[in-house]
């Protein structure tokens, strides 16, 4: 599925969607940034509760398709703007990481 399709599903809210046509091919769940960079694959959905500014660079450099903030975690508007500018898709979900992952059709 694409990030646009995911964003349209009930339960997901859009924070930034500059590159919504990207296809989601895998899922990685984690909050420690070096683990994400070491283990997440390109073109995946990265589900996390980490919301500081550094997640934008990590997502961009690790080339994931989107960040999904789980557990109802929100993003500061300045971070959201940076994500938009850097071409990083960010969605949010109120569910825990595992339940969020179960909703993805990949």
């Amino acid at each position: 599925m694409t990030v646009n399709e995911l964003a349209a599903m009930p339960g997901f809210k859009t924070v930034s969607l500059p590159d919504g046509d990207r296809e989601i091919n895998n899922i990685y769940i984690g909050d420690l940034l070096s683990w994400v960079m070491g283990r997440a694959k390109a073109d995946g959905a990265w589900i996390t509760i980490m919301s500081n500014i550094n997640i934008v660079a990590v997502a961009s450099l690790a080339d994931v398709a989107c960040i999904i903030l789980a557990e109802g975690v929100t993003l500061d508007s300045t971070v959201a703007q940076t994500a938009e500018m850097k071409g990083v898709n960010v969605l949010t979900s109120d569910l825990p990481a595992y339940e969020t992952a179960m909703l993805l059709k990949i």
Partner: protein
Amino acid sequence: MNQMAEPLVFRFDVDGDNFTSAGQASVQVKKNLRQLGIDPETIRRVSIAMYEGEINMVIHAKGGQADVIVSDGCIEIILADKGPGIANIEQAMQEGFSTAPDNIRSLGFGAGMGLPNMKRYTDEMQIDSVVGEGTTITMKVKY
């Protein structure tokens, strides 16, 4: 990509005080490599290895200098700082070893996976470090 007559050199100063902008050099290198038409997997390897090294310079060494040299078939990343140096390189290379303070860990860094990631994503990696003088890390990604 096209044959390159001369290697291209990109140089960056890495600011040691600003944690929110950490990673800027890596993000810029990613852009430059894209414009050069380098393949996405190579860009990803260079980006992650360089970002880990850049973050280390910010966390552990109060900044430094990053050079990226792009030539035919090889991208070389040289990260040089005048920080405290690494006393035991073998220990520092182990997954999970970290001296990062708690405030850094709360940001999601300091998992002790940076140097292992740099090794994992590059074809060659060399650490030259002198305690009290600084550290220079040289990495090569072939493509």
